[in-house]
């Protein structure tokens, strides 16, 4: 009920703010849609437009509602095949002024699971506030974020949701190395860093953040840190064709501390996209210490042949070495990702490993994601 109350409070704030927003001259107002609307409805606050895969824009209110959902079909070794509609995520953005933005990612989770072997079904619907934050922009170099947000560590955790990744399963280290979210404050921005080539000056992005309050809507497994502080630097080509980054995070749980350090790199050219991350965690919080490296390659088959547009081959190798009695694992993933349209993503792949544990297993992963 508390979660529901929070969400309702958010919606009320958005509605009040929307009404309060100044109304620009209608004849000069650009269509407030990211692209050509699938449908448009006139209203007192301007045109209400829906764009496939980009959500609903509510006229001049600055309010935008969209989301995504994923259907997963997995068959892991020694386990029954499962078909799961794991969640529907609603993305609510409100940008009443150019200097301010509020954003919420509300997840309806555990919607439906079907055991393909026994035929049994399960459902335990829950509402989770995945992210909820407000951004105040003082220019490209300086932005202030307050709320619950993705932990700025590495590449994958910045955009980890199923429709936006190339594989239907994540690198293993994300399960244990650090908390996916922080609740607190973050300063972030980008500055010209010089050193560029024909594309102009390169860019230095930074994030400095801390969990300065109790985690909002905290998960019970794994238990998140009580407090944490971290930073990230990313040096990139001005258009993001390549980037290198480093991350640091110190976390405290029940008086114990541990420390994460990470390096990452990204490169894309033509049909090829490569990325990799190296992460080490050491300290006293149980079950968090590890050493991990992964590298992932993506090849767009449609780059050369229009008939294969949107079809990608994907491969990933990960070395995962947890501390303690669990053995180190070598994990390989081979698969494909197909994006027939920008709002539909179909993925299938097989994971190989030389070890099986609570975190690692061999098997088939697939998913169908829809952006709405």
């Amino acid at each position, binding site marked *: 009920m508390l979660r529901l109350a929070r969400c309702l409070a958010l919606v009320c704030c958005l509605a009040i703010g929307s009404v309060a927003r100044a109304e620009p001259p209608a004849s000069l107002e*650009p269509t407030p*849609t990211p*692209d050509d609307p699938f449908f448009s409805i006139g209203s007192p606050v301007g045109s209400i437009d829906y764009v496939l895969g980009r959500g609903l824009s509510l006229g001049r209110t600055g309010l935008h509602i969209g989301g995504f959902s994923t259907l997963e079909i997995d068959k892991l070794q020694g386990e029954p095949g499962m078909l799961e509609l794991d969640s529907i995520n609603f993305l609510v953005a409100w940008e009443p002024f*150019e200097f301010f933005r509020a954003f919420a990612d509300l997840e309806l989770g555990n919607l439906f699971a079907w055991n393909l072997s026994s035929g049994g079904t399960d459902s335990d619907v829950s509402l989770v506030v995945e992210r909820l934050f407000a951004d105040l*922009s003082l220019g490209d170099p300086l932005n202030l974020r307050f709320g619950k947000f993705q932990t700025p560590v590495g590449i994958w955790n910045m955009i980890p949701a199923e429709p936006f990744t190339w594989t239907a399963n994540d690198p293993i280290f994300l399960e244990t190395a650090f908390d996916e979210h922080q609740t607190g404050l973050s300063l972030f921005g980008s500055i010209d860093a010089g050193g560029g080539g024909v594309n102009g000056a390169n860019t230095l992005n930074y994030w400095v953040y801390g969990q300065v309050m109790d985690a909002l809507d905290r998960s019970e497994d794994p238990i998140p840190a009580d407090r944490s502080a971290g930073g990230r630097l990313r040096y990139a080509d001005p258009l993001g064709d390549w980037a290198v980054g480093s991350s640091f995070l110190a976390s405290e749980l029940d008086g114990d501390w541990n420390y994460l350090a990470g390096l990452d790199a990204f490169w894309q050219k033509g049909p090829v996209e490569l990325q990799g991350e190296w992460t080490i965690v050491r300290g006293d919080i149980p079950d968090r210490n590890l050493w991990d490296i992964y590298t992932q390659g993506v090849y767009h088959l449609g780059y050369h042949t229009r008939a294969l547009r949107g079809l990608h081959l994907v491969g990933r190798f990960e070395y995962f070495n947890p501390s303690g009695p669990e053995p180190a694992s070598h994990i390989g993933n081979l698969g494909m990702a197909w*994006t027939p349209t920008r709002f539909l993503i179909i993925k299938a792949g097989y994971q190989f490993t030389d070890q099986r544990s609570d975190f690692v297993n061999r098997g088939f992963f697939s998913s169908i994601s829809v952006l709405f």
Partner: protein
Amino acid sequence: MIVHADRNLQLTRTELAQIYLKRRRFWENGEPIVPVNRNSVSAARELFVRQVFGDDSRRLEVYWNRQYFEGVLPPATLASDEAVKRFVASERLAIGYIASDLVDESVKAVLRIRDPSPVSENPSHR
């Protein structure tokens, strides 16, 4: 490329790309940038994308899908070059693109994008 008549600046093609990717969101004086697109089926949009971002439009789709996770949307669209010109002439924060023969004193042209081969598009990279 056109901006409000009061704005004095020069833009490179890379800066233009950063603005339309929303990687650069503020003018140098700290004011926010309001980029506007033509609708996606227009020839002007097609030329703009090809000349500024290259032939691989799939990468743009991947980019905007990832931005969608953060609730960041592509620039808004307008239905005609005339509408873009009117909007940019009245909104001092705006930037847009129109056919060069429509440019007049109501707006300032800051970059000219030519189509070197308007009929030699290679569709295999789209």
